[in-house]
């Protein structure tokens, strides 16, 4: 097991380096020029200013040298300075990542709870009205353009009904909780600031639900087919023949066996959820990773973009690693091999 974990972590680290390389090559291959994108028009026409700008960010060095410098700094936790915000990228990310995690974690937990429940229901009632209804609902769910749902939800619940708070993570009147974890709800809870906690929760509502709407369909579809695969398996029939109540058969025999594929999809769904946050954050003015990525990308801020790539790459790999390790917990056969 230890060797397996070590091997997986080594591969994951290599992939992280790969992600930085891909981002680096991509952002440098393209015709855009960071100096012209970030300096004003007048400054961009002054060769002396452009040269100074390039020297400051090390852009006057040959590309391989730039990349090696980046990797070297990375080892010391230095992600470079953002050309857009003029702050260290690590500082920017430390503020943006918790904001995104707050909606992403909420959304994935809700999606799994609802999706696994509905998917199991559909599989058990295969072919009945409820199964067909759930099929339509989940297919519509995966067809939703998230940015549009976000906009409609914001319009209806904030603008028309006025039951949801406005954009951002907190109302202008609320005090931001001290940065312990960066997750506002958790920080407010830890410091006992109930007003801020309620406000943060209210602001989380719509973005989380919009992301959930997108994920639930996927998880429902996959749970249904995963459960269908094991519903007629021998061990399930044996459990039934033994006279176990249907509830026990479903949870301890069917769902347990279906858990491995469900877990795999959950990992994948979390990855696409992080992607989806870009569009949702832009509607709700949520100062998260997606919004930061958008700003960095549209200003060709290479350190910013690489930082985002790095974080998301790491999250993706950690999630996959956790999923792989959980396989061993769920399915004893994996442990042996």
């Amino acid at each position, binding site marked *: 097991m230890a060797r397996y974990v070590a091997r997986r972590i080594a591969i994951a680290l290599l992939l992280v380096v*790969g992600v930085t390389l891909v981002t680096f090559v*991509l952002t440098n291959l393209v015709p855009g020029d960071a100096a012209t994108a970030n300096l004003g028009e007048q400054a961009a026409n002054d060769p002396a200013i452009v040269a100074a700008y390039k020297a400051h960010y090390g852009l006057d060095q040959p590309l391989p040298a730039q990349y090696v410098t980046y990797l070297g700094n990375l080892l010391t936790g230095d992600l470079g300075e953002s050309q857009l915000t003029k702050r260290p990228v690590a500082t920017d990310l430390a503020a943006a990542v918790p904001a995104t995690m707050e909606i992403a974690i909420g959304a994935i937990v809700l999606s799994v709870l609802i999706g696994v429940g509905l998917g199991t229901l559909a599989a058990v009632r295969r072919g009945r009205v409820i199964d067909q209804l759930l*099929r339509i609902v989940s297919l519509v769910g995966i067809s939703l*353009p998230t940015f549009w749902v976000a*906009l409609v939800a914001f319009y209806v619940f904030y603008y028309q009904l006025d039951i949801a708070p406005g954009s951002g993570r907190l109302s202008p009147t609320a005090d931001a909780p001290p940065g312990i974890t960066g997750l506002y709800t958790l920080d407010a809870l830890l410091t006992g600031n109930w007003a801020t906690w309620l406000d943060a929760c209210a602001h989380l509502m719509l973005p989380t639900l919009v992301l959930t709407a997108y994920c639930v369909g996927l998880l429902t579809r996959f749970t249904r087919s995963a459960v269908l695969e094991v519903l007629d398996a021998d061990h399930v029939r044996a459990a039934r023949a033994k006279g176990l109540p249907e509830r026990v058969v479903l949870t301890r025999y069917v769902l347990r066996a279906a858990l491995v594929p469900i877990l795999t999809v959950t990992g994948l769904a979390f990855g696409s959820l992080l992607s989806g946050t*870009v569009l949702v954050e832009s509607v709700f003015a949520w100062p998260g990773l997606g919004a930061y990525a958008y700003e960095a990308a549209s200003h060709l801020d290479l350190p910013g973009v690489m930082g985002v790539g790095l974080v998301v790459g790491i999250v993706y790999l950690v999630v996959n690693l956790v999923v792989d390790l959980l396989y061993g917990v769920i399915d004893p056969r994996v442990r042996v091999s």
Partner: protein
Amino acid sequence: MNKIATRRRRLPAAWRTPLALTGAVVAAAWIVIAVLGPLVWPHDPLAQDLPRLAAPGAGYPLGTDALGRDVLSRVLAGAQVTIPLALLLVGLSLLVGGLLGAVAGLFGRWADEAVMRFTDLVMAFPTTILAMVVAASLGASLLNAVLAALIVSWPSYARVIRGLVLGVRTAEFVLADRLLGFSTARILRSDVLPVVAGPMLVLASLDVGTATLLLSGLSFLGLGARPPTAEWGSMVAQAVVNFDSWWLGVFPGLAILTVVMAFNFLGDALRDALDPRTAGTIGEGGAL
């Protein structure tokens, strides 16, 4: 009428389901709208000759936008922009992913390792963010958005096709053809392609929806269509600026939703038709 002469050709079971039919009808309707183009537009989608930000009413059933353009005409014209580009994106992904996947599956060893590790790498990167970076650095245009989307969408094809080719490569009927001395090209054409074609078709039809979402998302962020192009994603983005005029965002969004839904319904039915395991459940109880 002569009853004997009407020999009906029946579609496979999965295609006769209400969902598949709905998908087919809606997709066909949008394709017809895209093909007919100006013939079905009540107004010129680019003409700015109507009252500005007028609510839906007589003369302009879906309202007008901030520049006095007819929203209905722009939504209909949007079909000409989005549908061909989504199909182009899927076709290109199929080509690039298919070629790389086939190379990996056929040649194995280092070619397989190289292609698959590269695939892992691209898949480790979040699609929208990678596409956004590429689109932002190439400059906003619809074709650049397709190119950016292509970079993130080929890996899933490469994976599936590699798996399929790998499975066929060692099959006995391929071995038999090898022993008969058939050329690699002939084996590819007559043995490998038929096996790979079905799943590829399912993947592609499911992906038209995803492609539409990705492209309209990029345009929504301002990284795709340039004004004054009538593109659905960028039309929804206009609603962010004119929040009072709900009709600006609602209708183009519904257009995206219906197109994606139609292709997802079709893809779902297609998957059932081709997968004997799920098809069995249709026979016994009719999972739609």
